[in-house]
């Protein structure tokens, strides 16, 4: 069935973006137990910087590289300056990142205006599974594997996991906990900026990533906020599922379907499909 295949391919491409942005949320959550609402804003500002560079130089990849770097820098600065003071206040951290989201979106509107600008795809976007879609999936896959390998198989990853899991014990073993947390935010935000570069085309405007963020958070929650692999799977499942809903049931039902999927998954597994419940200390 032609339509089925097309919807599936379309869903895989969008799911890749949800996975990537969800992954960035999960890395931060695992490191510092904070849901970073400002993540889409970092991705947005990074994409705008790439846009300006593209306009000035006529290229694409330079802007892409700058975007990743900018994302990392924003993540690092935010963790150091804004989040560290409020780390133990869960709700406060949410509000701080929320405030940052609002400020960054407003600043983007001030600098680049609220009108949409044309924003190129990385590769040719034509075709049922276009070169661009292949790039999107490949980029996300490579990034995801890199992140997983980093965490599971490298000494640096071990130190980062130790810092997140039990900061005091890690500190006593010589891990520089603060640095590890900052690094986590930096890596996560770079991943988020990658997701932004993939999600923004064809138009960029200050609210372009709002919808993607909600689906990314949904994907992270479905997969389990402390499980990167689960989030990636969750993202693809969500992308494909919502594509079918849009194609067979109607585009206006997509957000409701997302809610329904979330409710069903959490009803069965309150910590996400692959999440682990934390033991509660009494």
């Amino acid at each position, binding site marked *: 069935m032609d339509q089925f295949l097309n919807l599936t391919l379309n869903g895989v491409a969008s799911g890749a973006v949800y996975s990537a942005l969800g992954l960035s949320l999960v890395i931060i*959550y695992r490191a510092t137990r904070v*849901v970073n609402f400002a993540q889409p804003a970092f991705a947005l500002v990074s994409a705008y910087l790439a846009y300006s560079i593209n306009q000035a130089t006529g290229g694409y990849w330079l802007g892409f590289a700058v975007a990743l770097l900018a994302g990392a820098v924003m993540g690092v600065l935010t963790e150091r300056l*804004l989040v560290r*003071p*409020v780390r133990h*206040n*869960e*709700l*406060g951290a*949410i*509000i*701080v990142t*929320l*405030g*940052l*989201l*609002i*400020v*960054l*979106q*407003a*600043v983007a*509107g*001030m*600098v680049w*205006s*609220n009108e949409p600008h044309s924003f190129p795809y990385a590769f040719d976007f034509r075709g049922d599974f276009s070169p661009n879609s292949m790039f999107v999936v490949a980029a996300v896959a490579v990034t995801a594997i890199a992140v997983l390998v980093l965490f599971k198989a490298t000494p640096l990853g071990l130190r980062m996991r130790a810092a997140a899991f039990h900061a005091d014990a890690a500190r006593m073993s010589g891990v520089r906990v603060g640095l590890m947390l900052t690094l986590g935010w930096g890596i996560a935000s770079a991943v988020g900026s990658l997701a932004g570069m993939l999600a923004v085309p064809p138009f960029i405007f200050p609210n372009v990533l*709002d919808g993607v963020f*909600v689906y990314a*958070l*949904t994907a*992270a*929650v479905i997969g389990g*906020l402390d499980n990167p692999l689960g989030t990636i799977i969750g993202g693809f499942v969500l992308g494909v599922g919502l594509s079918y809903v849009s194609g067979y049931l*109607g585009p*206006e*039902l*997509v*957000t*409701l*379907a*997302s*809610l*329904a999927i*979330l*409710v069903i998954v*959490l*009803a069965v597994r*309150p*910590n*996400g499909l692959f999440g682990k419940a934390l033991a*509660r200390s*009494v």
Partner: protein
Amino acid sequence: MSAETSETTAAPADAPPARRAAHRPAPRRNLPPVVVHLGWALVAFALLVGLTMITDPFTNLRIATIGYYLIAIAGLALLTGLNGQVSLGHGAFMFIGAYTVALLVLHLPGLPFWADLLLATVAGGLAGLLAGAAAARLHGPYLAGATLALAVGLPAITQRYPDFLGGSNGVSFSVNSQPAGLVGVVPATRWEAWVVWATALLAMVILVNMSRGRLGRSLRAVRDDEVAASLAGIHVGRTKILAFIVSSACAGLAGGLQAFLLGTAAPGSFTVALSLSLLAALVLGGLGSLWGAFWAAIAFVYFQAWAEDAADAVDLPVNVENNLPLALYGTVLILVILLFPAGIHGGITRLRAALKTSRQGRSGRSEGES
């Protein structure tokens, strides 16, 4: 709603003396808290009526707006502040309340307005029951994510049933709520402010009594330590669901009042930004007490107005001017959390405590009491 309060206003130890006090005036006995609160509410209402008489119609509208946001944020204070469940979806319950009032006014025009409001409250509460039941096993960010999905997804129902719910244009209606004798005597904006605030004060009396009574203690116990609470005999799941029901009933009532004030209900009014702003305003106002909701409602309405006026006053390029109010809002949120984590009410409490240091030996009161 009244049925619940009757069980929560009494402390068991007071039982026998209070019964005697009801039959015989006992000058040294205190009045039951509910009556005291109602008395204060009446005083507050009188003050409000006076205020609306001396201010212009647009300020009356702003006063009314503060009133219904007060109810919504107070409900959220109960759920998030007292019970620790972070909800990012409160706008969805306001949406339900607004549409309930709208559809009732359009399809059952014979119902008096207070009945419409009551049904909006009930509708909100029912939705809260469903949401609470679904959310009872969730905590922290999972709950936040689920409620965010609710805020995004629920208003989309209007697209699915455009004939009944009006699609993206929503529904418009006029509410006839003034008694015949007052029409023309009292300007519409003033009357609307009275209706909103009478309802708001009544709702606050109920909420304050809930939060000071057994329900309030259960909520706080569950927030602080679920395991300990359940060991103490509190049914954790039921308490969490009850918190959802009460808070979403408040949101439904607030949504109904908003529909009343605006004469309209439309999905474009119930954005994710609304839900997030309610929470942000609550944290700004002070999370630990219902007074925080009061400051929050004022901040919610007046901050926006002040930011827009500030942007108008200075001659700036168009792009900067359009986005300045939002930029200011975000900055203030960040600064308040970093510098005054306990919000406005926390600041006031500390001030009061500092003034009392000669009496109190401790360096500061806990902000967990309401």
